[in-house]
């Protein structure tokens, strides 16, 4: 049993990887991260073990790309005046529809942000998330609950 043609992996998972990256990074940076995710995945693909969970594998790669982008942003100094702008829009891009709620998720601590985007944008279970983040399932649930609580408090404050 050989690996299926990579095009099929791309066709099947492109939307969910992009949903995750848009939620995690905003639309402005998601396109580049999407490209890097699938190019990295294609390079590593022949070594993927047969029977692996391809979706979780792809989202692990996407998650690492997202971390790189977030670290890059953190390294750049952000003038205070721009912060409000970012909170509202993420990199100053206009946000459409439900993107505003994800802009708030992006301001959460890294673990909570990762769990909420993997859970609610990419639709992974907490069991799958625990493998992507190499944490316990309980830790994943806790981070999700903490993140959601913070978002509610922000809204009602």
């Amino acid at each position, binding site marked *: 049993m*050989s*690996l*299926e*043609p*990579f*095009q*099929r992996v*791309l*066709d099947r998972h*492109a*939307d969910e*990887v*992009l*949903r995750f990256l*848009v*939620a995690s990074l905003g*639309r402005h940076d998601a*396109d580049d991260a*999407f*490209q890097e995710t*699938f*190019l990295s995945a*294609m*390079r590593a*693909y*022949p070594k993927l073990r047969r029977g692996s969970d391809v979706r979780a594998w792809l989202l692990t790669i996407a998650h690492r790309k997202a971390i790189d982008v977030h670290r890059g942003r953190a390294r750049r100094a952000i003038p205070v005046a721009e912060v409000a702008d970012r909170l509202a829009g993420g990199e100053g891009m206009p946000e*459409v*529809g*439900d*993107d505003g*709620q*994800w802009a*708030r*998720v992006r301001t959460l601590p890294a673990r909570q942000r990762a769990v*909420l985007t993997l859970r*609610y*944008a*990419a*639709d992974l279970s907490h069991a799958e998330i625990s493998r992507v983040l190499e944490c316990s399932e309980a830790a994943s649930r806790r981070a999700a609950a903490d993140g*959601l609580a913070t*978002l*509610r408090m922000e*809204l009602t404050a």
Partner: protein
Amino acid sequence: MTALTPPTVDAAALAARVAALAAEEGVADIAYAQVDSPAGRLVAARTEHGLVRLAYEDFNGGLDAVLEALAARLSPRIVEAPARLDDTRRELDEYFAGRRQAFDLPIDWALTTPFGRRVLQATAAIPFGRTSTYAAIAAAAGSPRGARPTGNALGANPIPIVVPCHRVLASGGGLGGYTGGLSRKELLLGIEGSRPG
């Protein structure tokens, strides 16, 4: 706040761009495209070395089966990248329109055995509008065992039309076999003005 809902996305254009880039930069090992022709829909696939597969889609179990066979035999790093097959599509269009007699496409023989490759290279030397026989090709390929293994090698031609196995006929003047069905062999011979009988 209400429940978090996934952002609305349409990744199709981005995915196509990734596939094209991967094929261009050699991250993908195989680029493919579907090509419509008067002989039915074809799947064309190339590596960095050249055209490696041209399959009659219906005769080979459909697109998925063609791609799966490529994944198993060559590499699973396969992407749909039509731009990488523009030359192939253009030359095939010209051939079917009667404006091209010889193909100038580089060939990757990776799917052939050493013997099969000798048979197909001897076949590639048959000019447009001419035909040969299994026996003559067997002799040209140095087959010690006569026409039967040669017929098998022609039947396994991974690149029909471009490597013109349709120009090889039975010694008695009959059509012999064809990897896309005999009606296609007749169609191609008709285009070349050498339909027997």
